[in-house]
């Protein structure tokens, strides 16, 4: 992945999670992976198009997703949920959208043109994601609600 793309994603993830959830965020070591990756339980995906092609995946366990959704809802003075219902899924999707949106804005300022596709969310047990031919950058984020893994796979259009 092009070096210039890395920081916008890492910074946006860090600052959006910190602002929205108002918690301390610990960033893990970045690394690369290409083999299939187990999905923890809830995965929000945002597609990227434009100068590049690729996608960003936000992955967390069901428990963490519920906690994150509730904390976000609380900050907006909305009712709490006790299972990951439509409201919960929409909240997680929104978080993914905010992070990716901010990263794409930063990239625009650097001169790279990216477009977003509407996010989608997957939930289930024992899921794996694999895209042969694309290497993914893994950005692990540790928050009190649990672990969020951001999986960025982008390649240049050639």
């Amino acid at each position: 992945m092009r070096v210039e793309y890395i920081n916008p994603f890492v910074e946006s993830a860090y600052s959006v999670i910190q602002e929205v959830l108002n918690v301390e965020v610990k960033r893990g070591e970045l690394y690369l992976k290409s083999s299939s990756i187990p999905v923890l339980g809830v995965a929000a995906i945002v597609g990227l198009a434009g100068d590049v092609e690729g996608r960003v995946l936000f992955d967390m366990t069901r428990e963490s997703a519920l906690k994150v959704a509730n904390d976000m809802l609380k900050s907006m003075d909305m009712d709490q949920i006790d299972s990951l219902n439509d409201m919960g899924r929409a909240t997680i999707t929104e978080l993914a959208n905010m992070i990716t949106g901010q990263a794409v804005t930063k990239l625009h300022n650097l001169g790279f043109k990216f477009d977003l596709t509407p996010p989608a969310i997957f939930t289930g047990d024992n899921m794996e994601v694999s895209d042969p031919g694309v290497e993914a950058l893994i950005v692990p984020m540790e928050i009190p609600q649990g672990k969020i893994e951001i999986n960025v796979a982008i390649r240049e259009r050639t």
Partner: protein
Amino acid sequence: MSSEDTSTRSFGRVPGAAIEGTMISRDSERGVEDHTETIDYKMVTFSLGGKDYGIDIMNVKEIAKFHTFTYVPNAPPFVRGVYNLRGDIISIIDLRLMFNLPAEQKDDNQPEDGLIIRMENHMLGVIVDNVARVVGISRRAIQPPHPIFADINLKYISGVVEHESRLYIILDVERIFHRDGGVSERSDPGRTEPDTRPMGQFGGEFPAHATEPQPVTHSRASGDERQVDFEFVRETLATFAGFHASEVNRQWLRRRFEDWRRERESVNKDVQLASTEDAEMFLEPFYSPSTNAFWSEQYVRRFASILPAAEHPSAFTAWNIGCGKGFETYSLALTLRDALPESRLKIWANDNDLLGVSTAPNLVFSAGVVPELFRRYVVAGRNGYSFSHEIRDLIVFEYHDVTNPSAVPEMDLIVVRDVLSFMPVDDQQAVIERIGEKAKPGAIAVLGENERMPVPEIWEPIEQAPSGVYRKVE
């Protein structure tokens, strides 16, 4: 040596073939040793609680540094945990704790020295104080153990031997980990292998594997010892410097080893590598010119001479694998810009070192380090000098692991200097294959000056080019 299996990382399977050479008298101060005595027993030596020990090299798969292992609850105290050895989960046993010897407490993030022990059908890691070296001795010199070695139960000792005025206690790992009272008796009760060896009888009776007929070496001791040293150097280069011996660097390694041996013997130092510093010293002549720096004018001219001079391609793509901080990539971009002024250039540069490659797109340097030839592309900035956009826009720097799939287009030139040798052998093969796939017919590949492309049916050396430069067969 061509028949030797390059993928093997083991000591034991390496044939005991000796290298021809002059005989070195190591024992001149003692003057009584028979120089022609056959070395038919090799052991890896190490220390435990201040004493010297050895283990038969046939039982040692490799020398290792254990970084983090996973604690296993309810295990005996000497089982430090399990360890992931390239996909195989092995138990790690602390020999010092097992034998109640004093053990130095290391910090959690400090690696432990150890050996990977290979037995009939499983592997095991053992932690020791320090791994010393490989020693070749004559089986005849091994003496039965004396009860005075009370530190370790006699039944685990297969003998003692003196070598270069040090006394080594040879441990019998089969007995320690397999036999009655051994570890596996408790941890692996399903094992029903009978103990066929008489206990406590050591006079002249050596472990079964030691008396099995082995390839008999009639060579002179010095040649045999040299082979032991060579294998050990080969193995420790991987442990200390991440340098993996393979077809890519075999020629250089052989040659360098002979030089190194002479250098070290002339200053009376051990041929074997004991530390990272030793390994770096050994590898010093390996690196190609202008490593981690901008290329010198001389190297630029040499490099330009291998480029297609007659025709000017309309588009020219280059791939720089292992670009590091970008010195090599910028040098390449400048060289190509001057050599192919008409061509549309694109250079893809990647490295899996995130910190290094992160600084590459905005590399800042002092003016003096760029050869005169390229000063016109240098612009002054607030923090120092950098290259003009004309050059920077030619390059795409990527954080990328070349063992993963890559989306780069087909290439006219691939520069991969001194990169392959620092990958595990399997990865080297995968990357060589990928380079072959991504290269256009007639493309040029530039390896390190001391590296060779091992697939002659795809890559042929370019005549009159510096060594390490190849053209893809059309």
